[in-house]
Structures are given as structure tokens and as C-alpha cells.
């Protein structure tokens, strides 16, 4: 029995199908997280990163989480 025979009999399809469902859910969560109101400012700030190549930077204020528990 070759590789194909072994793979064929291993019954792996279910993993791929479960994977599809999991990733669909993850994807939905990502979309929701990206577009929910709270993140707008932070992300629009991140969108400006390419524009300051040569500007000496300190850590961006926006890269700190303002709504999170900080240590």
C-alpha cells in the first residue's frame, strides 16, 4: 500500500471538515473584532505607520492598550 492508500484509509476527512467550521467561526470573530467601535481609533492610528519612515519614534501611544488591564 502506497502513501495514497495509507492517507486514504486514515479517515482524515473529518479533521478538514471540522477545520473548516472552526476557521469560519474564527474568521467571523476577527471581522467582528476589527470592525467593532472600540477599535476604530487604535487601528486608524496604526494605518499611519507607513508615513513615518524617517521620523524618530518612541513607542506609539496608540500601541498601548488603553482599555486593558496594564501591569
Amino acid at each position, binding site marked *: 500500500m502506497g502513501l495514497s492508500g495509507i492517507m486514504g484509509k486514515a479517515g482524515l476527512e473529518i479533521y*478538514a471538515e471540522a477545520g473548516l467550521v472552526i476557521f469560519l467561526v474564527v474568521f467571523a470573530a476577527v471581522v467582528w*473584532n476589527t470592525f467593532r467601535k472600540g477599535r476604530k481609533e487604535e487601528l486608524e492610528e496604526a*494605518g499611519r505607520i507607513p508615513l513615518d519612515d524617517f521620523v524618530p519614534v518612541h*513607542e506609539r501611544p496608540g500601541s498601548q492598550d488603553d482599555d486593558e488591564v496594564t501591569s
Partner: protein
Amino acid sequence: MSTEVEKFRYDDDIVRKFVGATLLWGAVAMLVGVIIALQLALPAANLDLPYTTFGRLRPLHTNAAIFAFAGNAIFAAVYYSSQRLLKARMFNDKLSKAHFWGWQGIIVSAALTLPFGITQSREYAELEWPIDLAIAVVWVIFAINFFGTIAKRRERHIYVAIWFYIATIVTVAILHIFNNIWIPAGLTKSYSVYAGVQDAFMQWWYGHNAVAFFLTTPFLGLMYYYLPKAANRPVFSYRLSILHFWSLVFIYIWAGPHHLHYTALPEWASTLGMIFSVMLWMPSWGGMINGLLTLRGAWNKVARDPVLKFFVVGITFYGMSTFEGPLLSIKSVNSLSHYTDWTIAHVHSGALGWNGFMTFGLVYWLAPRIFQTKEIYSKKLAEVHFWLGTIGILFYIVAIYAAGVTQGLMWRAFDESGRLAYPNFVETVTEIIPMYWVRVVGGVMYLVGMLLAAYNVFMTWTKRPEKYDEPVIEAAPLGEDTGPEHAPEPELAKAGGMLPSAYKIAYFVEAKWHRIWERKVFKFTVMTTLAVITASLFEIIPTFLIKSNVPTIASVQPYKPLELYGRDIYIAEGCYNCHSQMIRPFRAETERYGEYSKPGEFVYDHPFQWGSRRIGPDLHRIGGKYSHMWHVRHMKNPREVVDLSIMPAYPHMFDDDIAYDVIQPRVDAMAMLGVPYGEAVNSAEDMARQQAEQIRQEILAEGGPDLKDKDIIALIAYLQRLGTDIFKTPPEGDGAQEPTAAVNH
């Protein structure tokens, strides 16, 4: 927060190198493109030399365009933008150099092997196994250098362009490895471990995703960096770009099953695959609109700036091609478009329009910066290039769309009496020759534009300062990440009146982990890798299941040793670039070519030879159609037999001797792959000699020349065997273990 500031410099030397290589190889790729376009309009341009025939040069063209031109452009874009987006010099200068020289070495070895017929015949993965290994090594070097840079970055948030680069690096590695599993049969020859239907699925899983992850994601990454730079404004919606990223990574690969209708794939998955293909329209167009809207309020700038012009047209072609792609995956459209020039038009609107124009925009934007000249040498020339290129593309694709649809319709046309309206294949070829000439004109325009760009950048380089200024950049190192790293303690949640499990759900639903991905590269990369691998398994596993689903046909036997050698000539000559071996179950095809192809007929085809474009007729049932002598005359000079043929002549097959000594190792390699070669494992060479002698005698009997031990004999042995097994009665008993099919005459 740390207040210390670190000082460092960006490495632009490596960017200059990659830009130079982009222009050099771009010119080569497009020049070869023009040559092969000319060969189709004017077969004499094949020059009757083995090294310059269409079948050998076409892979050189595609590989040069994809891996040398687009590849070097990607690396230039990545090295320049990543350092700036991450506020760090590349991880290691030596690795950068090794990457550059290694990649150029691979390109040179491609140019030194493909014209000599050293090829795996897998489209866009033709390079033979030693070069494949070199590609793997160079890619790993690139990956270490890139991830090393990310690790020492000074910018917390990883900008979306970098995400696209990460997806590219990870996925291309996976694609390259799985599509190149072979058994070597000598230094310049290997056989794919997959056969027939499986091999075809593997190859097009690769092809489908290579377009996504070599020609799409890195170019989107560079779009999200260089377009805002050139327009001097942030991207229209950063959030849309995040959505764009994830939908491509998730949906693109899952859309793969549209290649797998009618396989072992569960029905619901197949349907989902089709839905995903159509869903791809949304993110792709979202991305295009996001790009174009970045220029809102700056359109007056576009009129004045060639860089923006190239970007705008490039992005528009991205929209066009990603609209057309899903369209072509719809079965009824595909039944017309497949095997015709429609596909060629589609890929060129992508390659010339999207990849080419994004590259030119990139190069014109980079040149004055990396050569520190403030301005490009000549804005006017860049303008001229823009118009030459745009009109060139239009000439090219309009003519080739027309050629594709015309030929597709002619192939399936019936007259009133119910017979094929154009039974003579060559009629459908001569009809489109004028359009081939228009393509040559369009291609030449595009090539001239490319040369102007090279000249313009070269002249900019001559204006460089004596010593490049290397500005010192200052940035604070990243302190401890204070972000939401772990799901907060349950106690904390309890204090907030929440059950621990409820908190975990909230943690998931609010997708805090996604914010961690956005800053934790390792996790991010692992997730991307997982996404790609899971989706790929989903596609690949069914192809492994197919073996059990492909009904075996008892009368189908392995190729005899000489036929196998003849098949290797067919592969080396790149006949698959012009001929398919896959007759579809449509009446127009069975009328023209004969019985339609069954999956079970290909179980010994390592690699498969289905082809993707019918510049000449299908050859699956060519066995026994003509006499040996017909093939002798036709291969020597096709125009002697078929007046208006555009097939190259193969006089060298009448000079070159069969290399009998390589036959045994090749049969052995096949046997290792599970092909039941029986007795031939010990006596391949003798069997080959016998069969060659038999065919030689038959040709003599037909009044032909004495072709003792010439390559042409082996090729004829193969051609006469093709597609004949299913009409034979199956061998009995032990005989099934041996190659038994006879040569037809």
C-alpha cells in the same frame, strides 16, 4: 515605557540589488515572451534548434516572469518596506546577501536547464530537483532573515503589509514542498510520486495557490505600503485592509474545492467551495476599492505622477482579474474557455496589468530614494512607458480574448448535418493567426516600455552621490508588552461579577486573542500556518482518496521501457505546452478526438501530461491514428504534412541517439513508485532495444529511412501507445504484473 533611544541605519544596498535584478530579468522574461509569441505567428522563429522551440522556451518565459521579475520585485519591496515598518535594520546583512545571490543563482540555473529540456513538466514548477532543493534553502534563509527582523523590531503594531509578507513566506514554503515530492532518476531527472488524477490535483492546488501567495499577497502587501507613501496619505480604511487580509488567507484556500467537483469531496464541501469562490469577489473588490479610495481628493496628483498612474492601473487590473477568476471557475464558462487563449488573456491581464504595473510603480518610486537623487532621471520617459505599457496590454489582451473565444467556438461548432463544422484542427489555428500578430505588437510595446524603465533607472543610478548618505534612525526599543496577553485571572472576572467560563467566552468573542496576534508575531505566524495547512489538507486529502475512487481498468498497463523513454522526450520537449491529453466528455470533443478520457487511464502517469492549452490538437487518442511514417515526416517538418501547421520542427530527434543506459534507472525509479514493472525491472534495456528494432523495421517496411536507435523511434513508440490500452482485452493471470501492451501499427 522605556525612554532610551537606539540608533541604527536601514540597509538600502540590498534593495538596490534587488531593483537592478528586477529590471534585468524583467527585460529577459518579456523578451522571451515576445519571441514565443512570434513563434506562434511565424513558426520559422523556432529556428529549428532544439533549445529555441516553443515547448522549451515557454517555461523559461513563465518562470522568468514569475520568479525572476515578480520575485525580485517582491524582495526589493519587502526589504525596503519591512525595515521601515518595523523600525529595524534587516536581521543579518550576510543573510540578505545570501538570499540575493542564491536567488540569482537559481534563476541562472533555470535559464541553463529549461532550454536543454531539463524539466519536471509541472507548470510553474518545472525546475528539476537539485534546483528545487536550492530554492528551499534560499527560502529558509529569507524566512530567518525576515522573522529575525520582526523579532528585533521597534514598532509594536505589525502593519498589515507585514502580515501579507508573512502569509507569503509561510504558504510558498508549504506549496513548494508538497508540490515537489519526487524520486530522482539521475541528477537531472525525477518522477513525481503522484500519478495521473492525483498529480493533476496536486499540481493545480499548487498553481491555484501560487497565484494567490506569490502573485497576489506580496503585491497587496506592497500596495498597502507604497500606495500610501506615494500618495502621502494613509490607506483609506485600515480596518478594511485587515479584513482583506484574513478573507484572502481564509477564503482563498478554501475556495480550492472548485477544482474538485465530482471527486471524493463531500457534496456540501464542494458547494461551499464554489460559494467561497464567489465570495472572493467581495474581499478582492474591497481591496481594490480600498486602494483606489486612498487616492480620494488626490486625483489631481495622479495626473501628474507616473508612480500613481502605474498604481491606479495596476490596482484596476487586480479588480479585473479577480473578477474574471471566479467567473472562469463557473463550469459552463469553463467548458468554453478551458484550453483556449482566454486563459492566456486572463493570466496576462493579471501579470502585465497587476504585477507588472505595481512593479513599475514601485521601481519608479524607489529609484530616486535608493539612489538618492531626489527625482527620477526622466519623468517624461516614465510617462511614455506608462502609455506604451497600457496600450500594449490592451492590444495583447483584447486580441487574445478574441482569439480564445473564436477558437473555442470553432472547436464546438457543428454544421446542419450534425458534423463538426471545422473538423480540421489547423483551420481553427489559421483563423486566429492575425490576432497572434496583434499580440506580438502589443508585447513589443510592453517590452519597449520595460526597456525604457531599465534605461531610466540606470540613468538615475548614474546620478547617484559619490557616497550614499545613510541617515541614522532613532527609535526606542520595545519595552515589555503590556497588552492583553493572557485571559485575565478568573478571580478578577469574579470580582467583576462574571463566571470564569463566561469570561472565557467573552474573551473569545471579543477576540482579544486577535489583538495578541497583531503584536505577537510567533502566534500570528502559527495561526496563519495552521489556517493554510488545515485548508490545504481539506483539499489534498480528497485527492489521496481518489486512488480508491478511480476505477482501475484492467487493460491499462505500464509503459514499456522504450515508451517511457519516449514519454520523457515528450516531457523534455514541452509538448504539453501545446497539446492536452485529456478529452472531455463533450460531443464536440469525442467527435474530434475519440473516446473521452477516463481517470483510470492515467494511473501510471508520473507526472500527468494533461496540459492546459491546446495550441495543437489533443493527443490522448493519437495512438494508432497515423502510421509511423506519418509521424516521422511530421516530426521532421510539420509543414511538410500539414501546410499551415505552427508546430515546431524537431530535426534533432533524427540525430540524437537513444541513451539506453538511462532506461534501467528510470524504470527502477518508476517501480519504486509502485508501478508494476515486473520483469522489466531486470531487463529494461534489452526490452527497449528490442522494441526499437521492431519499430525501425516497421518504418523501413513503410518505405521510410533507417532510423536505427534514434530518439524519434522512442517518441513514436510512446505516441503510438497513447490512449490505446482501454480498447484492449485485459491480460490474464500473472500477466497483469507485466507490461504487455503491444505497439500499434
